[in-house]
């Protein structure tokens, strides 16, 4: 069964057609289906997250998904500093790094959609004062935003 409702799918498809400019890649870290699953290490939402991303990919040619296995592609995971799954690393016209850990459902899905548009255009709705302050940051800022499903 599809995760996105038909009405949402149409609305998103229109939004992406209108707003997306350059291609955006979602690096999706997951675990490959294996006959040997260690119960404690099973990823509860990886399969559903993968299905959701497949549906999103189907809505625009400008959205690309690269799927990585956390274990067998450990080097890539290390480079992108991914240590838990499911994880998404977004790549477009961003200057810093944008990541999601856990399934982006509910409100977080809306945030993901907004991020895809911003990454595709290389613009944000931040004020010019904020953008100037960020351009002059004297050091690195690692920001974690902890959320729960809504």
């Amino acid at each position, binding site marked *: 069964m599809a995760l996105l409702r038909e009405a949402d799918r149409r609305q998103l498809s229109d939004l992406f057609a209108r707003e997306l400019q350059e291609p955006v890649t979602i690096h999706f870290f997951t675990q490959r289906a294996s006959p040997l699953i260690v119960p404690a290490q099973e990823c*509860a*939402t990886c399969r559903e997250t993968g299905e959701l991303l497949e549906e999103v990919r189907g809505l625009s040619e400008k959205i690309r998904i690269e799927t990585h296995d956390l274990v067998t592609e450990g080097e890539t995971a290390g480079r992108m*500093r991914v240590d*838990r799954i499911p994880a998404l690393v977004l790549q477009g*016209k*961003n*200057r*810093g*790094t*944008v*990541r*999601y*850990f*856990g*399934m*982006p459902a509910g409100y*977080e899905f809306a*945030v993901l959609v907004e*991020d895809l548009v*911003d*990454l595709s255009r*290389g613009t*944000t709705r*931040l*004020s010019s*004062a*904020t*953008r100037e*302050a*960020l*351009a002059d*940051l*004297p*050091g*690195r*800022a*690692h*920001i*974690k*935003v*902890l*959320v*729960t*499903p809504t």
Partner: protein
Amino acid sequence: MAIESPMVTAGVIEVSEFPEVAQRYRVYGVPKVIVNEQVSFEGALPEGRFLDKVLEAVPRATRA
């Protein structure tokens, strides 16, 4: 912010899937934002105050 600046890394973490993260950061309210493991706040802040929190965390992090 991470879209605008190469100095910023932003990660959204769904803590119900990673309860150890919720425990580690003593999450009582969401969203909870943590900058450089030093400055944190709960709830949404206006853009300017959010930026102040980031600026507050950055100089201390670079001194180390």
